[in-house]
């Protein structure tokens, strides 16, 4: 059964979702239990793969419907004719992020999303969202990636509009699906150009015969623009605050995870699809591409944080910080890309480029954890005060000790204060980027300071101050599931912050190696 793990990871949430109209009758407690079990099993399966894939560097293929699923191609031909799933260290890393985020988010949502008839639809869509993100992480087929991208964006849009009674929620969902559809159309156009030239959809096969012609660059432009649009980097970031603000808190966290997965996919396309091909034909100009990514990253960081400083709406503030944090990842990986194929035989890449990439990729993971935690706490704040406006929140620290503590942990982590995990990845980024260009490192540190200032504002205005029970609209204590979700995330942040070496050596470094093929 172990060689069937790749397909189980994607199909288990699918089958659970398909059976929801049937199991929905069984009462919500049983249904939640089943879903939590499935998410736990997913995480278990993912961690079962860690020793083989991440530590020993194996690559697992799974060819759908073939007589020997572990083979990449059939005998006699050089190209795969079926859909192939591929698990290497990088896709495993993406999958682990999705697994952890979905588990904690669902635990949180058991207590915050009202248990009524519509909750059954919510959990169905949640499971399909999970399946879509898992599929995006593990597929090695461009068109299959498109299908899973659509699954995740349609379920995301529907979940954003979940609270239809809010005046603007359906419009926010509309905006999300509009942007996603434009992005997927661009993506499909790029896929069509690849297919026209090489007659295949398989990422690994296309890379092995890639000619790096002008058409390939056009295809790359389309695919990268589509991914950047969905990940919400500047200049395609305008949908982010509107959508994140109107969605339920747990769905904001899921959208963030979706953005992270899209970002990972973008890096995968840059290296594994359009990267240096094994046939040794020409190369794309990595230095130019790297600088484009760096400029996008710096703009994202700066515009995101400056817009966040002036917000009064806690969710819009956090959404702008999400844009700003995306900039760090783009900066780290962009520096890696810029020195990736420099003419010095990889010396610059080994000296600091790889470290920058490790920092960027590590930041994706850390950011997924603490941003998730912050979105979830903002959900608690919104429930308590019945508003998202910071001016209407005061003195929550007197009532909710747990929320206060985890918010503090999340805020310190996002600002890059030791000993939390944001510090470790930001340190890696600062150090390596400083060797590349000191100005960029200084901008990154400056943005970090502004992030801290912004979150201190939130902390002072909503958690500190006199106790005001008259402002509280819902004072019911948090349920066990909600607390569990918050505590797991906070514990992960602290553990990653205290022992970054284990994570970096065990998961991040193999992921970067799998991505760039340079040891």
């Amino acid at each position, binding site marked *: 059964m172990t060689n069937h793990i790749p397909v189980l990871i994607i199909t288990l949430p699918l089958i659970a979702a398909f059976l929801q109209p049937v199991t929905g009758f069984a009462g919500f407690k049983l249904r939640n239990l089943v879903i939590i079990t499935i998410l736990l099993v997913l995480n278990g399966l993912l961690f079962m793969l860690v020793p083989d894939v991440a530590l020993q560097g194996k690559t697992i293929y799974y060819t759908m419907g073939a007589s020997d699923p572990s083979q990449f191609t059939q005998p006699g031909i050089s190209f795969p004719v079926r859909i192939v799933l591929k698990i290497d260290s990088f896709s495993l890393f993406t999958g682990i992020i999705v697994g952890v985020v979905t588990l904690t988010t669902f635990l949180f949502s058991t207590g915050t999303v009202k248990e009524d008839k519509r909750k059954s639809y919510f959990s169905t869509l949640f499971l399909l969202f999970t399946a879509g993100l898992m599929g995006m992480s593990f597929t090695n087929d461009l*068109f299959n990636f498109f299908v899973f991208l659509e699954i995740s964006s349609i379920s995301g849009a*529907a979940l954003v509009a979940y609270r239809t009674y809010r005046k603007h929620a359906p419009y926010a969902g*509309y905006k999300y699906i509009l942007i996603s559809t434009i992005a997927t159309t661009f993506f499909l156009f790029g896929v069509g150009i690849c297919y026209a030239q090489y007659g295949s959809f398989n990422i690994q096969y296309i890379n092995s015969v890639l000619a790096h012609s002008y058409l390939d660059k056009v295809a790359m432009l389309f695919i990268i623009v589509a991914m950047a649009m969905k990940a919400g980097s500047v200049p395609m970031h305008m949908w982010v605050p509107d959508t994140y603000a109107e969605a339920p808190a747990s769905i904001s966290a899921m959208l963030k995870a979706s953005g992270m997965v899209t970002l990972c996919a973008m890096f995968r396309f840059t290296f594994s699809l359009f990267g240096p091909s094994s046939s040794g034909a020409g190369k794309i100009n990595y230095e130019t591409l790297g600088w484009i990514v760096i400029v996008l990253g710096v703009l994202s960081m700066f515009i995101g944080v400056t817009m966040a400083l002036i917000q009064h709406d806690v969710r819009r503030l956090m959404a702008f910080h999400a844009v700003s944090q995306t900039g760090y990842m783009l900066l780290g990986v962009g520096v890696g890309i810029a020195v990736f194929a420099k003419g010095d035989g990889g010396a610059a890449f080994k000296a600091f480029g790889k470290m920058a990439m490790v920092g960027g990729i590590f930041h994706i993971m850390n950011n997924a954890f603490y941003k998730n935690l912050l979105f979830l706490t903002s959900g608690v704040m919104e429930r308590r005060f019945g508003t998202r406006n910071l001016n209407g929140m005061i003195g929550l620290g007197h009532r909710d000790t747990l929320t206060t503590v985890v918010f503090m942990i999340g805020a310190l982590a996002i600002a890059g204060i030791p000993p939390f995990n944001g510090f470790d990845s930001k340190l890696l980024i600062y150090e390596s980027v400083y060797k590349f260009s000191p100005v960029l490192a200084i901008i990154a540190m400056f943005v970090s300071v502004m992030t801290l200032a912004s979150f201190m504002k939130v902390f002072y205005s909503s958690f500190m101050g006199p106790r005001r029970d008259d402002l509280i609209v819902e004072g019911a204590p948090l349920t066990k599931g909600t607390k569990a979700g918050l505590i797991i995330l906070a514990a992960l942040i602290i553990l990653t912050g205290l022992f970054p070496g284990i994570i970096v050596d065990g998961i991040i470094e193999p992921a970067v190696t799998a991505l760039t093929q340079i040891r």
Partner: protein
Amino acid sequence: MLSIFLYVTVVSLLILSITSVIYKRNLIKLVIALNIAESSVNLFFITLAYRPDSTAPIFTLAPALQELRMVLPSPQALILTNIVIGFATTALMLVLAVITYKNNGTLDIRKLKGVEDHD
């Protein structure tokens, strides 16, 4: 050489639809614009699959094997998928537009601007 105009049509349709997305302000018209974009991608794939003097890739009652030429099958399979996905997206967008109208009384995105905290 004339056949290159198939590609020109594809690109023109795509550009037309994206321009409409930028300039149109009615939520229903945006849905129509995205449908045009989907059609252009479908047309692109089916253009790639074309092969002159060929039959559809179906063997039931087809000409004899030796002189058989067939168009490529996989783009057809893909646009079948894309059509279903496009249908799904369109349906969801229309439903969201209906609810937006019920909530706000307008479909004009200029009047829908400014998503702020209203309660």
